[in-house]
């Protein structure tokens, strides 16, 4: 019965029914830096690849290089890893796409593009083409940036040729493509280093793409590259509502007062309350704001630099626009990006200076304060916002005028806003503006978020 347990690689039977649930988020984030990888659970299965659960590690090898069991388990792990690494990039000839790499342009021309993956990769550029009868024409064609081409080769979706000037008329099937085949290794060696692409930037690109994000360049590498619309950089509280909306609120607030006369909403003891407009700025925060005489906040510009010349370009500049996988994305007309990412090399780049950060914040949009987190019971179900006892009163009989004119009234104060007011500490912590910096140290990538906290807007007294 217990024969299997005597084998060195046996596991207790309780562990065996492994239904391979996807890695749950909590477990993954717990110890993210030192993820325990168990390659023995990863063997390529072309049918249904499953990300295995994490294995377990031991504290240290026994003296003298490890016990027999330890060495055996280590060998098994290593061999599983090497087997996984040996898997070849294979794709059916019906699903494969083809591209030609033009080193002089630093672009790959996708001659055959198949699959959904191309809905968010590549852009079309008109290029002059000489047709068979010697006439030069411009044709639009799908071109890939170096990182896009490299990623597609690496994931085994594209077979890439390299442009060659050889006369390939004699070689069957090759006269159409006019190129020599490229390996993934060659693509790594030759595509990185072109068009501002560094290995670090490529690693961040591939990391995000593997997670399903749509990634585009923030600064267009050529004039025809589709560029995202500019952000609305005005402060959130000054952002103007639509003209129609303002007219409507003005109109309806006057009108509702008249209506209230008839519908009984008027307080007969105070028929003429002073207008909101007169007492508007007479609360504590307004008074304190008026008393503040040292300039505060991020609208105050930094002192100009004295000695150091800003000739050298800062490594802190936004390189990628990132869209969440759920965002509807149109390649030709990208919308506002969900995130913007700066990529730096951890080994050569120091921490950003205040000026570098401020420059980045200045071109980032303002974000609304975070909503307070909904409290959750240990089971993970959100608590009801109100206690169960307070049964809502039955709705009063609705008069005709109520029914006909609801759109004229000002929108009722949302009942949830009181309980869902942003928490000041949360808002300060999150900041009004955010910059995401991807720091790459020889292959390991970390993402860091810098937030511009607005202390002056959340006065606490």
């Amino acid at each position: 019965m217990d024969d299997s347990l005597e084998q060195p690689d046996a596991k207790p039977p309780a562990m065996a029914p492994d239904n391979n649930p996807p890695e749950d988020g909590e477990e993954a984030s717990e110890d993210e830096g030192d993820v325990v990888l168990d390659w023995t659970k990863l063997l390529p299965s072309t049918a249904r690849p499953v990300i295995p659960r994490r294995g377990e590690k031991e504290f240290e090898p026994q003296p003298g290089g490890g016990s027999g069991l330890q060495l055996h388990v280590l060998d098994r792990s290593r061999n599983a890893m090497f087997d996984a690494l040996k898997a070849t990039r294979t794709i059916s000839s019906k699903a494969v796409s083809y591209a030609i790499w033009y080193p002089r342009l630093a672009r790959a021309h996708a001659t055959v593009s198949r699959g959904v993956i191309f809905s968010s990769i590549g852009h079309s550029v008109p290029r002059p083409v000489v047709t068979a009868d010697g006439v030069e024409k411009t044709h639009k064609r799908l071109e890939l940036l170096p990182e896009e081409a490299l990623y597609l080769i690496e994931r085994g979706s594209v077979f890439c040729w390299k442009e060659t000037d050889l006369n390939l008329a004699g070689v069957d099937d090759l006269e159409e493509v006019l190129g020599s085949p490229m390996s993934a290794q060659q693509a790594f060696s030759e595509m990185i280093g072109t068009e501002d692409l560094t290995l670090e930037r490529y690693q961040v690109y591939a990391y995000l793409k593997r997670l399903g994000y749509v990634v585009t360049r923030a600064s267009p590498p050529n004039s025809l590259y589709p560029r995202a619309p500019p952000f609305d950089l005005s402060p959130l509280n000054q952002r103007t509502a639509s003209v129609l909306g303002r007219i409507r609120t003005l109109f309806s607030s006057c009108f509702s007062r008249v209506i209230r006369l008839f519908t009984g909403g008027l307080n007969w003891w105070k028929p003429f309350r002073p207008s909101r407009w007169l007492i508007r700025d007479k609360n504590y925060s307004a008074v304190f704001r008026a008393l503040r005489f040292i300039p505060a906040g991020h609208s105050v510009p930094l002192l100009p630099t004295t000695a150091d010349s800003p000739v050298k370009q800062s490594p802190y500049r936004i390189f990628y626009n990132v869209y969440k996988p759920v965002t509807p994305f149109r390649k030709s007309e990208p919308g506002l990006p969900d995130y913007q990412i700066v990529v730096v090399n951890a080994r050569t780049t120091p921490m950003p200076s205040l000026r570098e950060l401020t420059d980045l914040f200045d071109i980032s949009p303002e974000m609304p304060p975070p909503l307070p987190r909904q409290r959750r019971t240990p089971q993970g179900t959100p608590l009801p916002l109100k206690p169960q006892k307070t049964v809502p009163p039955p709705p009063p009989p609705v008069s005709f005028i109520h029914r006909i004119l609801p759109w004229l009234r000002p929108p009722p104060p949302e009942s949830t806003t009181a309980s869902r007011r942003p928490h000041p500490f949360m808002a300060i912590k999150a900041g009004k503006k955010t910059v995401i910096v991807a720091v790459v140290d020889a292959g390991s990538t970390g993402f860091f978020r810098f937030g511009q906290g607005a202390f002056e807007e959340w006065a606490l007294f």
Partner: protein
Amino acid sequence: MSNDPPIHLRVANKKAFVWDVEDIATLRSKHRICGVLTGTLPHLSQQNLFLGVPLVLLPEEVVLLVENEIAVLLDDPKAHIQPSVIELQKWRVKEKELQQLQLSKVTTALGTSPMMMSEEAIRKRKEREAKKKAAAAAAAAAQLEILLSVPSKDPASATSADTQVTVIIPASSRSFDWYNDSASIYRTIDSAKAAEIWEYPSTLHERAKCGVFRGLWEQGMYMGGGIKFGGDYLVYPGDPLRYHAHFSATVLESPTSSLTPMEIVAHGRLGTVTKKSHLLCGWDDTKKEASFLSIEWAGFG
């Protein structure tokens, strides 16, 4: 060590890559050099936990390997020579033969796909098949006549098989005849620096990092990047595949360089939280020696 042929580290953009799985295996099992896998694993391309070739080496690892004559540097862009027409023709012929072979294989061995599965999956499948067989045997006895009347043919797979072939996208360039592996090889760091394909170490800090790395490696440790733990390296007592790191190490440019108390507190605290001790590694550039000092949070009161 020196009787083996040196491992070729393929350098491009001043980074060293290893593309051959055998070399990765040798580096790891024999020389305790792990590097960082950075490529997308084919067929598991939508995750970041398990990555594939190429293996990117830390610059310290490269310096150590070249100085110990375990590996040589190779200018990879220069090794990719433009193929001649004849070479391309040969390649094409080979490709066609491969495709023909595939087609003939597919038609003969249809249905038994040589899938690789984890051990548990294989065991489960066997159990399932055994059950199915038992059930089928029982059912077959009853329905033998019906089964015989149905033609045993799978038309869908038969028609698709003759047009569809598997395209292989090569990972390493070694399969190309025109890839010149022996050209532009550099056996020392200095010669590679002179050829401007490599530039590490160029400052005192980088020299200190190389020296400390060597010091730890010679004591039988495995090293990984420590950026996620606030240090320069993570130091493992055995292969990181199986063992936890014991230390996170920071490199100091000199054994007498000043440290603020805050740094000691921060490192000690961080090491304790992550169940490691922090290792302060001082490098003496004149004596070419590294010294190590570990801090632990005593946690009195």
